[in-house]
């Protein structure tokens, strides 16, 4: 090769490589790379109890390293003979948004940017048209006259579109009705976010920032353990609480008692009572055929 062609080739190659490196600059902003152990982790449904045990220890170590607090992480399985249903009384909801923040506190969501699984819509009386909804209402006192409030979160559909579109099966529905996400398997393509008609799914655009003093140490693998940048998350009916027999955090804090939760297969539960005795039920976007497990109702 003569000097001229050498100089030409190297000049072109160098500038080409420089342009390539510059275009990959956004990767420098990513600060949450998975460890090799997490990268090589098996799919949730293929893990043996011993594998799961190792994974739970790994998560406990990671959280302790990052937040200085050793959590208690469990892998809670669905209970037998249980199918969860949520009933929400729209006559009672006053739109105080305490459920939104109780959820954020219970489920270790990022605070900056703040991810909120529940979105409370303010609708004018007499219409269920969500185009008329106001998401950002901030009056001095609620409830406001002439409006009613409708909190929306993951509806845990019987026929979930998000499960259908996931290319890697990182999300699936378990037998107690909760649609769960394996945060270590999710690739962050956000197809599920596009498919969900209720905008229930949230994406971690940045590394979640959870203040140490507000970390909830009672965690579950498929539930509220801290997620990383680049994965989806959503309401999972507080499975770290509900699969242990307790009510979800949003229900416990609601001052008006608008939220009701329980096992619909049990005829003595309050949700069975409501579904039997109340008259007007609304399932959001019924025409999409998702068959949600969230029933809104009005009563006297």
């Amino acid at each position: 090769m003569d000097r001229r062609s050498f100089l030409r080739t190297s000049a072109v190659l160098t500038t080409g490589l420089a342009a390539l490196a510059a275009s990959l600059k956004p990767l420098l902003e990513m600060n949450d790379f998975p460890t090799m152990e997490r990268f090589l982790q098996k799919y949730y449904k293929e893990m043996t109890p011993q594998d799961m045990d190792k994974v739970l220890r790994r998560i406990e170590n990671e959280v302790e390293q990052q937040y200085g607090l050793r959590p208690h992480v469990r892998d809670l399985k669905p209970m037998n003979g249980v199918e969860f249903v949520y009933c929400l009384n729209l006559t009672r909801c006053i739109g105080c948004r305490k459920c939104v923040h109780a959820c954020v506190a219970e489920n270790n969501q990022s605070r900056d940017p703040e991810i909120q699984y529940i979105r409370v819509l303010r609708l004018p009386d007499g219409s269920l048209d969500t185009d008329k909804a106001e998401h950002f209402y901030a009056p001095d006192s609620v409830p406001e006259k002439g409006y009613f409030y409708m909190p929306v979160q993951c509806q845990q559909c019987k026929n979930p579109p998000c499960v259908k579109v996931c290319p890697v099966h990182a999300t699936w529905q378990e037998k107690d009705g909760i649609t769960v996400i394996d945060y270590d398997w999710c690739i962050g393509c956000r197809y599920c976010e596009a498919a969900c008609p209720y905008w229930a799914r949230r994406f971690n655009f940045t590394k979640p920032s959870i203040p140490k003093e507000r970390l909830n140490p009672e965690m579950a693998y498929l539930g509220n353990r801290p997620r990383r940048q680049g994965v989806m998350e959503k309401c999972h009916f507080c499975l770290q609480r509900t699969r242990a027999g307790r009510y979800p955090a949003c229900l416990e804090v609601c001052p008006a008692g608008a939220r009701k939760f329980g096992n619909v297969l049990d005829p003595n539960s309050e949700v069975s009572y409501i579904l039997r005795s109340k008259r007007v039920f609304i399932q959001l976007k019924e025409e999409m055929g998702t068959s949600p497990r969230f029933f809104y109702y009005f009563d006297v």
Partner: protein
Amino acid sequence: MTANAKTGLTLAIVCAAFSALALAFLADAGGTRWPRPAIPLVDTNFLDKATTRRSYADLVRAGEDLSDFDCYACHDKKKPPPLRLDTNGNIIVAKEHPDIVMGHGSHGRNNNCFNCHNETNLVLLQPRDGRELKFEDTPRLCGSCHGPTFRDWEAGAHGRTSGYWDRSLGAIERKQCVNCHNPHSPRFPSRKPAPGPHPLREIGATAGPQTGEE
């Protein structure tokens, strides 16, 4: 132009283009980032699960001071307290009971003290059917008029039920009527809502970064 010179020129243009691209990416052209106000941590009042009021039953359970409920410290055992009405027929609450504001029922339909309180024995409550109820048992009094709501409350569908949905694993805690409803003015109190969603940009702001910051 010779073939060699043409190639040279092409390569020079290609190099210039790549260098420009590289500089553009490195200088972050076309990608602006404007400052977002930090999101403050939510006030812990919004995470509080306590009810606005405490019932007589709560006070008894907590072993607290019940002297406020000792009616005969002031009232005469032999004489029932008189009812004073104003010119419109509305009850005038005695000034010795300053925290009672009557507002029960629309148009003040239920503003008569002795609709609920027993005038011959002030430590008891009286529903319309003549039963006598203790102050711990207020749901039965309220339920004597508000039947469907009482039935819903007993089933767990009205009011707050917390604890365990699976009763075999733990107990529930059901709140009484007066934990949320002031019996003299029962309308559920309004309150300030918690902060809503935090969008990237202020609602109503026009597009573009703030004054030249990146």
